[in-house]
């Protein structure tokens, strides 16, 4: 980490997006995480994705729980409102925030302790409800802030820095997310920005529950031999099922692609996801096929990454609840309070 404040000045030649913003406008405060932490790479990918999508930073609400990963929303999108909730409870706070204003982009950031242990119930239920959000789990298999205990996503047989061997079965967040009804499920690796940025962009534009499980090695407590969440291990066992290219709605698809190896998926907002198939047998449109493949790769000791499941026509919680199109937090008194005469009528009914 560093304690030097970033200067506000930047190079005049820095690239700007459609809104006239540079990368710097999407940055936050200086990270206080360890140097080389995978989480900082993810923050950088979020910044890049938002910059490239021309998102107004204040239209994003970033929410998190407790842990190293949950600190990161302070380190990107400094012009966005942030909410650092209690441990494991980000999903409920995000759900409530989303109910109040359906027009913002909700970015939930969590970790494996936050999502797979203390907040496992909330992780599960917010996906069942189909909350329109991007749920990023920065997954390192370890409790960093409390110095190196196993988390619930640590693989069985994985070795801790202290030498302890994990005897418990791991929780696979992506398989669960697919089973629970998430409509966009992907796994990335913090060390592969090229794969990660398009995944984040696609997740943001997806109008449903988008889950991104990002393996993000802990350089301090889980980057040693014997760990299955170290940089070396993940690089060696990463099996990308596809390569994603995100094309915004207004752009025409001009790049040629080889018949059969690239799949084109049009999202609800008109944007296009181009999936270069790296595994010919992988079908991201089928929950059953996706789950089978994940099980298969897991058995083989590999980590499947890429866009694992996508329902391009998702439903969301507001649809289920049939809420009005305008945000609930913008309703005026007349739209909320039935008033004095209506209350008199109520009184009459209880006499």
């Amino acid at each position, binding site marked *: 980490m560093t304690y030097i404040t970033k200067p506000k000045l930047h190079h005049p030649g820095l690239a700007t997006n459609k809104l006239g913003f540079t990368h710097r406008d999407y940055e936050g405060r200086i990270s206080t995480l360890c140097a080389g932490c995978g989480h900082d790479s993810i923050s950088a990918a979020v910044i890049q994705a938002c910059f490239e999508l021309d998102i*107004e*930073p*204040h*239209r994003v*609400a970033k*929410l998190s729980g407790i842990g190293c990963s949950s600190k990161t*929303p302070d380190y990107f999108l*400094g*012009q*966005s*409102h*942030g*909410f*650092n*909730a*209690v*441990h494991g*409870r980000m*999903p*409920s*706070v*995000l*759900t*409530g*925030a989303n*109910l*109040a*204003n359906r*027009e*913002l982009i909700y970015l939930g950031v969590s970790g494996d302790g936050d999502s797979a242990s203390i907040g496992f*119930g*909330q992780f*599960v*239920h917010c996906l069942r*409800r189909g909350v329109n959000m991007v749920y990023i789990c920065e997954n390192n298999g370890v409790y960093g802030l409390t110095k190196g205990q196993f988390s619930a996503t640590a693989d069985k047989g994985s070795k801790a820095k202290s030498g302890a061997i994990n005897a418990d079965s791991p929780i696979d967040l992506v398989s669960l997310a697919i089973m629970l009804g998430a409509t966009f499920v992907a796994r990335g690796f913090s060390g592969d920005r090229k794969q990660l940025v398009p995944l984040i962009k696609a997740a943001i534009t997806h109008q449903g529950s988008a889950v991104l499980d990002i393996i993000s090695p802990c350089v301090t407590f889980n980057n040693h031999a014997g760990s299955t969440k170290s940089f070396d291990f993940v690089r060696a066992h990463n099996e990308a099922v596809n390569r994603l290219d995100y094309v915004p709605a207004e752009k025409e698809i001009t790049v040629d692609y080889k018949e059969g190896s690239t799949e084109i998926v049009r999202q609800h907002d008109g944007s296009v996801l181009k999936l270069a198939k790296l595994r010919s047998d992988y079908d991201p449109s089928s929950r059953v096929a996706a789950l089978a493949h994940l099980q298969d790769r897991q058995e083989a000791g590999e980590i499947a990454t890429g866009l694992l499941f996508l329902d391009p026509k998702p439903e969301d*919680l*507001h649809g289920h*609840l*049939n*809420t*009005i*199109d305008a*945000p*609930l*937090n913008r*309703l005026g*008194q007349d*739209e*909320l*309070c*039935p*008033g*004095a005469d*209506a*209350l*008199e009528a*109520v*009184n009459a009914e*209880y*006499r």
Partner: protein
Amino acid sequence: MQPISATNDFVVKFANVNGSGSASANELFARAVLRMGVPVASRNIFPSNIQGLPTWYEVRVSGEGWLGRRGGVDLMVAMNPQTWDKDVASIDPGGYLLYDSTKPLPAAKLRKDVTLLPVPLTEMCNRAYSDPRQRQLFKNITYIGALAFLLGIEATAVQWLIAEQFEGKEKLIAPNLQAFNLGYDYAREHLKNACLLKLARTDKVGNRIFIGGNEAAALGCVWGGAAVCAWYPITPSTSVAEYFTKHCERYRVDPVSKKNRYAVVQAEDEIAAIGMVLGANWNGARAFTATSGPGISLMQEFFGFAYYAEVPAVVFDVQRGGPSTGMPTRTQQSDLLLAAYAGHGDTKHVLLFPEDPREAFEFAAAAFDLAERLQTPVFVMSDLDIAMNDWLCKPFVWEKDRKLDRGKVMTAEDLEAGKTFGRYLDVDGDAIPYRTLPGTHPTLGAYFTRGSSHDGQARYTEEGTLYVAGMQRLLKKFETAKSLVPQPVERSAKEKAKHGVIYYGSTSGAMNEALDTLERQGFRLDALRVRAFPFPENVIDFINAHESVFLVEQNRDAQLQKLLVNECAIDPARFISILHYDGTPITARFITGTIADRLKLAKAKEAAE
């Protein structure tokens, strides 16, 4: 033994088996009395069970208008063999016993000092109906028919009510009327002049309404502008969310798009429920949850968060018997300390104590204004007695020009105009800062909400002086709350009184009657009904103005007294606790008896000295 003779002043208690269909028949009885212009106070005493366990319904008939429980029973309708012995034993000497006399009962099962009102209900219904379910169900309406004749309820009042109740299901009107007449005619033929308890038409009900506290609270949420409700089912709070949904379906559906101007989410647990409430309030929509003691226990961490990060929230704690699972279907006022100091670390919360459904409505709506004004959780401390019984109360009021107070929220225009924004700065001197809502402005007013220590700009800090300054401001904000919460209601004795009595919440009904009785017995008492925490200064003045103060509560540990001692630095010796916590609502007789005994003792002591 002289049979009890009374007009418009007696207690009828129904002893039934849960799930036997008695509830609607018994309620019909209470409503019929109301239709005659005679006030009633009805209480459901029911088990945590769907079918089979004992349940009671008590109707206090009071021409004087006393709305608490009196205590004692003048007429028992004993329909439950499981509880027969206890039910019969609980009748006041000279009282009456109405029972199913189909099978003869040994004399030992009956009492000589009560008047027997035998009605062969099973036999009559078996003869009249062939369907087994109907045979069982209509027994209830049949005993209501008998009671109507015995007490002099106008048959037309009941007949109208039956017709109203089954509007839309007209097929059911005729068999119900038949059952009613069956009982009515039987009593007329066989029990003429057997009962000296009588009802006489009067006009004491006036324009009052008859409604339960949970429905009233839900209406208060609709009128108070709540847009989001997140909840988890728990007795006795469940129907708050259900009634909120019902009334929103009526008042909050956009007439053009047919879409909802509200959202109700049944959460996976109470922790998620309060999380959603905080998320929605943080984002500018009024949101609430309704729960009971166990839910409040689970929500503790979030309450501390909301206190410290200053996020508004409205919480209905419909109190039931604790600790632990306790008595889920019985009433208590035993969550005061839990709610007042909810959360770890130094925390305090605003509590409101409604006395009846009318105040449940009023305080529900007020709670949203207070929560947004003060930017903190506000607890409406209802209880099962208020929540799940229908109470006769003054009609709800909503002033035509009443405006929702949305508190200190800076808009994009404010920020553009150059107003200084610092999320936790006290600019106005009332210790209440300004907030902004997410998405307000592209470059101004964003901040990070966190439960970790923060400075005036909401930045993380571990600097001790900044932390202390923040905690001190929160204390000062709590001082500000004192003048905003509902103020206590004082009722002075006719002559100067040495003793005072403090009470709150659902104790009110019984207390009003007890105060009247004590006054007639020559005991002078000034009374103060506390309606909120933090306590306004005049609560302390009241205590200091009296030699000693009775504190009437429905819990074991004198929780309000502890709060007073704790927060107002009052010598505990000044208080005399009057505690009732067996799970049934407190009675006027209990209060009168215990206070009179204490005062007699004090007088005797004085005389001896």
